[in-house]
C-alpha cells in the first residue's frame, strides 16, 4: 500500500490554528484533543542576522490521533486540515509526492508521517 504523508511549507504557516479546529470538527474531537497541533518557535533576532531579519516560525504537525483523514480521502476529498489551511501550506500526497515538493521548495519545509 502506498503510504501517504502531510507536506508543510513552514516558511508560510501563519500559525492561525485553523487546521487544529478543522481536524476536531472532522473527527468530533473535544477541545483537548488534537489530530494536528500548531507549535510556535517564538520571535528572536539572532545576533548574526541582518538588521530587521527575524526568526519566528509556526509548525503544524499531526499527532498520533491523525488518521490522515482516511474516510474523507476515500470519498475523494482532501483531508480536513489541508482543505481548511488558510495559507494553503498544508498538502497531502504520497511520500514520494511530498518528497518532491520538499526538494523543490529547498528550504523551510517538512514532511510528516503521523
Amino acid at each position, binding site marked *: 500500500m502506498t503510504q501517504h504523508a502531510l507536506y508543510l*511549507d513552514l*516558511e*508560510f504557516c*501563519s*500559525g*492561525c*490554528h*485553523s487546521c*487544529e*479546529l*478543522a481536524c*476536531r*470538527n*472532522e473527527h468530533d474531537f473535544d*477541545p483537548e484533543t488534537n489530530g494536528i497541533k500548531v507549535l510556535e518557535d*517564538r*520571535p*528572536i*533576532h539572532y545576533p548574526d542576522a541582518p*538588521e*530587521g*531579519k*527575524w*526568526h*519566528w516560525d*509556526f509548525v503544524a504537525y499531526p499527532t498520533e490521533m491523525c488518521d490522515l483523514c482516511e474516510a474523507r480521502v476515500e470519498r475523494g476529498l*482532501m483531508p*480536513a486540515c489541508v*482543505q*481548511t*489551511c*488558510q*495559507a*494553503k*501550506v498544508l498538502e497531502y500526497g504520497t511520500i514520494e509526492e511530498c518528497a518532491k515538493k520538499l526538494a523543490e521548495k529547498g528550504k523551510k519545509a517538512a514532511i510528516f508521517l503521523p
Partner: protein
Amino acid sequence: MQEWKRQEGDETIFRTCAWSPPGCHPVGCGLQVHVKDGKVTKIEGDPDHPITRGSLCPRCLALKEYIYHPDRIIHPMKRAKEDRGQDKWEQCSWDEATDLVANAAKEITAKYGAETIAVFGGTGREANNWYPQWANLVFGTPNSVYAQAGWSCYGPRMTNTAFMMGGGYPEIDYAAKFPDRYDDPRFVAPEVILIWGKEPLRSNPDGLYGHAVIEMMRQFGTKIIVVDPRITWLGTRAEEILQVLPGTDTALAMAFIYVLAKEDLVDHDFIEKWTYGYDELVERVQEMPPSRAAEICGVPEEQIWRAARMYGKAKPSSVAWGLATDESTNGAQLGMCLVALMSITGFLDAPGGTTLGMGDDQGSVVRDGGSISADEKVDDATDSTLELALKNGIMTQETWYTKRIGVDKYPCVGQVLWTVQPDEFLKCLETNDPYQMHMAGFVSSNPVGTAIGAEPQRWWRALKRLDFNFAVDLFMNPTIMACCDVFLPVASTIEHDGMVVTHYGLNASFYGAQNKCVQVDECKSDVEIMLEVGKKTYPDFWNRFEDDEAYNNFHVFRSWLPWDELRDNVVTMSNEPYYKYKEGKLRPDGQVGFPTQTGRVELYSYAYANFDEDPLPYYEPAAYGPTTMPEMMKEKYPFVLTTGARRQEFFHSEHKQVPSLRQITPWPQVDLNPEDAAEYGIQEGDWVEVFSPYGCIRQMARVTPIIKKGVVHCMHGFWYPEEEGSEPNLFGNWKSNVNMLMPNSVNAKTGFGNTFKSMICGIRKADSLGGPNEPDHIVLEKSRQGEFTVQETWRPADSPVVDPVDYEKEMGVTK
C-alpha cells in the same frame, strides 16, 4: 460546482457565505454546513468558494460551539428597570418583548421627540447595515451611534477616499473580483505590497481575505513592506519591516513621498492627467526628508530610503492601509499620504495595484443629503435609508439636519457618515446638551464593554440613566446586563437568509448569499426583528413588507440580484473592470475621472479645506506622547501604549466564551520588551498592572522582542463571561479592559481619531488578575477629562468635558 443545498445520506449540506454574528467583517468566507434533524453536525470550508477555496479561520470553524453555547440567549427576555445591573431576567414572548420596545419608543417620541432615541451598532458586523435602519426607519431618529471615540474605525479612511478620489475604499488587488481569480488574463500580481498599520492575516479586514497576501507571495513572488510598531509574523516574511514609534507614521509616509519625488519614481503621465496638487504635495513633504522622519519615527534613515525606493520601483505596486490610519489624531493626514502613494505610482485601479469600487453603498451611507425632497415618490427602490425615512414621513428633514448630535461641531464626520459624532454624543448623554436623550437600542454593540467605548465607565453611567434600553444580541454582555430592559435574541449568519458584500459594497469583490441552514430556538434575524418592531412603530411603511425576504429584496439586495438567484449562485463575482476612472464608472454623472471637485485625485484636497483642515498632509505629534508630555512621562507614565492588534480567534470583545477559541489565548496579554520587563522584575506569565492617567487594568506579561523598548502593547476586548455578571463586576469588565486607559474627546480637528494607537502608561508587577479590580474592591477612576485639560492646551478650540463622576458614590462601587 455543488448546489447551494444538497443531500448526502441523512445530512443536508448547505453552501453559504458568512458574515455576522458571530463577529466578523464582510469577508463572506465559504462554509459548508452539515445539518441533520435540524441541527448542525459539522462546519467545514467550501472548496467551491472562489476566494477562500475551502479555507476558514478558527471563528467560523467554532460556529457549532458558538450557536449551541449553553450561555446563548435563545428566548426574548425582559427585566424591570429597577433591576438593571442585576441578573434578574425573565423570559417573555416575542410579542411582549417587541411591544415593550415599540411602546417605549412611541411614548418617548410623543413626549420628547424621536431624536431622543439612539441606536448603537458595532464595528464590522452585519449590524452596520441595520443600526441606521433601526434608527431612521424603525424609530425616526437621526441618532445612530458608533460609539468608538473619534469614530476610529473605517470611517476616517472612507472619508479620505470620498474626499480625495471616490471609489469607495481602495483595496489591494488579489484578483478578488474575477471568477477565475489569478487565472484571469486581466490580472497581474502586485510586485510589492505596502502594508501599513495592518495585520491582514489576523483581521481579514472589511472583506480582504488576508491570507491572499501569502498566496501571492508564494505563487507570484510578491514582496511586502510592513509598517508597524510591532514585528508581526507577516513582518518577518517582509523585505522590510519599519518598526515605527506608535503615532508617528504620518511622518514616515511623508518621507516616502519625499523619496519618490526626489528620485523620480512616479508616473508623470498619470499625475498630469489624473491628479491635482502634486507640486504642492511635493513642496509640503520637503519639510519631512527621511533624516527627519527617522528621528521622529525611530526608524533608521537608510531603511526609509531603501523601503521607499523599493516601493517606488515596483511595477505594479499596491497599498493596504489599516485601522491604525483611523485611530490617531494625525490619521487623516496619514490617509492623505497613503492615497497619494497609491496614486502617484500610476497603479490606482490598475492590475496588481490598488483597486477601487463602484461605490455602491447598500443604502446605508448618506448620499448628498441636499437633493432630498420629502415630496418625491414614496417607494423609489434606489433610495438610501435616509431618503426612505424622509419620503415616508418617518423622519423630517428638520430632525435630520438639526438634531443629529455632534455633526454641527464636526461637520466633516457628518458629511460622509450617517451617524452622530460619538465623543460629542457621550457628552450629550452626560450633560443633556443640546437636549436630553431618553432611550437606546444596542444592535450588536457593547459600548460599556471592552471593544469600542473609551472610558467605558462613563458610557456605563450615562446609558444607565436613560428611560428605556433594549439590545439585539446573542450573549449577555456588560452593556446589556448593566443597562437594558429587553433582550431580543438574534440569529447568527447560518440562521438567516441575507447577503454579504465585501467592504459593505463600497469595493465589492463578490456578492455572497448567507443561506439559512438551521433555526436555533426562538432566535430571529435582524431584519425579522426590525420588521416586528417597525410594524408597531411605523406600520404604514413596514406593513408593506410581508416578511424579511420582501424587505431584503426591497432595501438590501435591491441593486443586485433577486434573492433566489443570489442564493442559487452562493457567490456572484462582481467582475468590476480595472481603470474605472477611464470609463466613467466612478462618477455619478458617468463622466471620466474621479468624483471630486476637480474630477481628479485631489492630492491637494479641497474637501478637507472646506472643513477648515489643511488641504495637504502634515505631521502632528500624538496628544499623549514623548513630544507633548515629556514631564508626565518622566514622572509617572514612562511608556508609550498601543493597542488593538488582532487575534484571529477573537473578534474584538466576542468569542471569549467559546472553549476552543478561548484556549488559544486564555488571558489578555501585554507585550513587554525583555529589557523593560527585566527592569520591572516582570517575567513571562506574570500579571502586570498597566495604568494611564485614566485608569488601571491588569493583563498577563508576554515578554517579547517584537515590541520596542519603551513601548507596551495591550490586547483589547478582554472580559470574563465566566465571572459574576451582576454589577459592579459585570463579567470582570473593568479588570483587563484597555479602553479604561483611553480618553474620549481627544479628536482631530475633523472630529476623527483618538489615542487608541498612542497613549502613555506606566507598568508594575501584580500578584494576580484580582487586586484593585476585584469584584468587591473595584476602583473606577473618575473621568479625568476635566482635570487633564489636554484638549485645552493641545487643541484649544475644543472644550474639555466637565461632569466628573464619583463612581464610588453614584454607581455603588465599593472600595
